[in-house]
């Protein structure tokens, strides 16, 4: 067979030419693809023709439709179809491109499926983010709401502790205080989790001594170790640099949570904190903190879940105390500091948490700033307390009266405070942010706008613990930002520090 004949036969096999009258009645067909009876209507072949044939005419002498799916007697074709109008006749040409189109089908299918999957993932991610944001906002608000009444309660508990109590009363009050402190820790944890999730928790980058961190831990847990009759040891290797640059508060928070967790899960034996150098290169050092215990241990199946927000290790293994949110915070804080955390455990033998954290090391020993000469505060400090909550006022007043040398006036809102400031001058203003008529921030703005009170020391006392409040207040110039509940000592210290900075 010649190439010409082969080509012609091939084309004829894949192209069918049909002629019909203008209504679609078949006059002739070469039957190359589909058997069609003369006299039948082409519209019976496929509803496609029912819609198209009436359109062909003088206005549309030639119509072309690529990629039309047509089914005839269980055989499926994908055709390019051409309809030509000539006088009283229609010429319909069917080009069979079934194989050609089918070859491209898997590629299009895969492309579309991937795109749909990517779209769905985006939607799921957006929904998850929205839920997370909602949860964080709820946690943050809940924490603020609970902080205020807890602050009042703890304030009065502290005052009560200093009064004349019997031994029995004092012991009971101790339990109330410990419970209150536990609630406070949980609230702080909740707030930290929401801050980390929202990305609003900012790390500090300051120089600090690891020795100070370990001393704090030793002080904090030695009493607990004694009362639980558990050995507690901190082993810091000699090659750990004396001064590091990083965030000591967050490092401390990680270690406190891990050591506390070890104590909770260890009925007898030992809790060991080992600090060593993982690697050191020029100004960079990575420290390995290993906290191991001889406690209940964690089942293998539970290990991957222990850093989940609300996960509690099997109560049977750890029957003593709730696990709180500590491990979730540890995991979040380690990740935030670009560190790594690992956990190994054997039921009945104990658990070991290993945290690696990167730090910078100052190349030269930093010169300590000359210590400022202590200012003599042995004089009456005039305080203006701006707070509308009666319980808060009473608490502050009692704390200050206990200090003896401080006098205090009260204003229920910012407007009242401004009026008092016109009549009298004060050394320090104690300011709540959530106030009626003129709130704390607006009061601060007005205060700073006046020449006379531009540098007036202000200590903020608030249950609004979010960083955005602190940042706004700090921008307007404050001496300290204390979140409720605060310790009496913290308040007195803040007042004294603010007093030292006043303009004489």
């Amino acid at each position: 067979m010649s190439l010409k004949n082969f080509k012609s036969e091939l084309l004829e096999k894949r192209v069918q030419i049909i002629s019909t009258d203008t209504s679609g009645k078949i006059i002739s067909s070469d039957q190359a693809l589909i058997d069609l009876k003369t006299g039948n209507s082409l519209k019976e072949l496929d509803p496609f023709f029912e819609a198209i044939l009436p359109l062909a005419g003088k206005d549309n002498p030639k119509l072309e439709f690529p990629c039309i799916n047509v089914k005839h007697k269980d055989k499926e074709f994908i055709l390019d179809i051409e309809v030509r109008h000539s006088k009283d006749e229609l010429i319909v040409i069917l080009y069979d491109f079934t194989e050609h189109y089918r070859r491209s089908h898997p590629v299009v299918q895969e492309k579309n499926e991937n795109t749909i999957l990517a779209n769905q993932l985006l939607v799921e991610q957006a929904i998850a983010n929205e839920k997370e944001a909602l949860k964080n906002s709820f946690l943050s608000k809940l924490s603020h709401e609970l902080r205020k009444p807890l602050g009042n309660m703890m304030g009065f508990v502290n005052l009560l502790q200093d009064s004349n109590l019997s031994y029995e009363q004092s012991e009971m009050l101790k339990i109330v205080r410990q419970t209150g402190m536990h609630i406070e820790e949980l609230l702080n944890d909740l707030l930290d989790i929401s801050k980390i999730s929202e990305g609003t928790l900012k790390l500090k980058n300051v120089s600090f001594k690891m020795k100070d961190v370990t001393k704090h831990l030793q002080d904090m847990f030695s009493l607990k170790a004694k009362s639980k009759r558990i050995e507690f040891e901190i082993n810091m290797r000699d090659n750990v640099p004396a001064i590091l640059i990083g965030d000591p508060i967050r490092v401390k928070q990680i270690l406190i949570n891990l050591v506390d967790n070890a104590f909770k899960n260890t009925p007898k034996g030992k809790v060991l904190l080992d600090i060593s150098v993982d690697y050191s290169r020029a100004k960079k050092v990575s420290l390995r903190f290993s906290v191991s215990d001889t406690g209940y241990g964690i089942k293998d199946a539970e290990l991957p879940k222990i850093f989940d927000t609300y996960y509690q290790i099997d109560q049977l293994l750890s029957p003593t105390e709730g696990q709180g949110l500590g491990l979730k915070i540890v995991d979040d804080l380690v990740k935030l500091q670009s560190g790594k955390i690992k956990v190994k455990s054997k039921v009945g033998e104990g658990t070991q948490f290993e945290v690696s954290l990167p730090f910078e090391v100052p190349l030269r020993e930093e010169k300590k700033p000359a210590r400022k000469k202590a200012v003599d505060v042995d004089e009456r400090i005039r305080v203006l307390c701006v707070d509308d909550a009666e319980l808060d006022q009473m608490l502050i007043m009692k704390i200050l009266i206990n200090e003896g040398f401080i006098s205090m006036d009260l204003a229920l809102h910012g407007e009242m405070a401004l009026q008092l400031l016109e009549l009298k001058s004060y050394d320090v203003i104690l300011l709540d942010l959530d106030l009626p008529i003129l709130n704390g921030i607006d009061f601060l703005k007005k205060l700073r706008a006046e020449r006379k009170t531009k540098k007036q020391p202000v200590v903020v006392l608030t249950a609004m613990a979010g960083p955005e409040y602190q940042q706004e207040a700090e921008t307007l110039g404050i001496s300290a930002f204390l979140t409720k509940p605060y310790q009496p000592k913290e308040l007195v210290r803040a007042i004294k520090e603010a007093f030292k900075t006043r303009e004489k």
Partner: protein
Amino acid sequence: MELSKKIVLLGHFGVGKTSLVRRYVDSAFSEDYLVTLGVQVKKKQIQLDDNQINMIIWDLEGNAKVEEMRSSYMLGTDGFLYVFDLTRPITFNNMKENLDFIRKQHPKAPIRVVGNKADLFEGGDLDEFLSKNNLRDITTTSAKEGTNVATVFEQLAKELL
């Protein structure tokens, strides 16, 4: 009276155009997604008042942009169903532009907008979702469960009479 009406289904790929047609014409549904290449035409006869309507339903290959569709496919269209997927915002984000284009090209052809896959919607309250996304005057359907499928085709058919 017997009338033939050409209905064209438009919208992004994977929104369920073929499933809506299969549910309406063949009373069938498949969970598997099979891409449509080019055009599949199906026919459904319905009785409206004294009229027998032959609905010639053109199920077109999905495309994000209507202006990229072949103009010959649209020739002689009596009415459109614009279908989007309630679970994929990308399928209705550019809907206004697409609808404006169709209205400009086919000013006499009515358009019904269909939010399909209502059975898979997990975004909370559906009415609130539609209002939030400015999706007014749409019909929500589920090709899987058959919800509103016949209704939306027949509403369009009534508009064509």
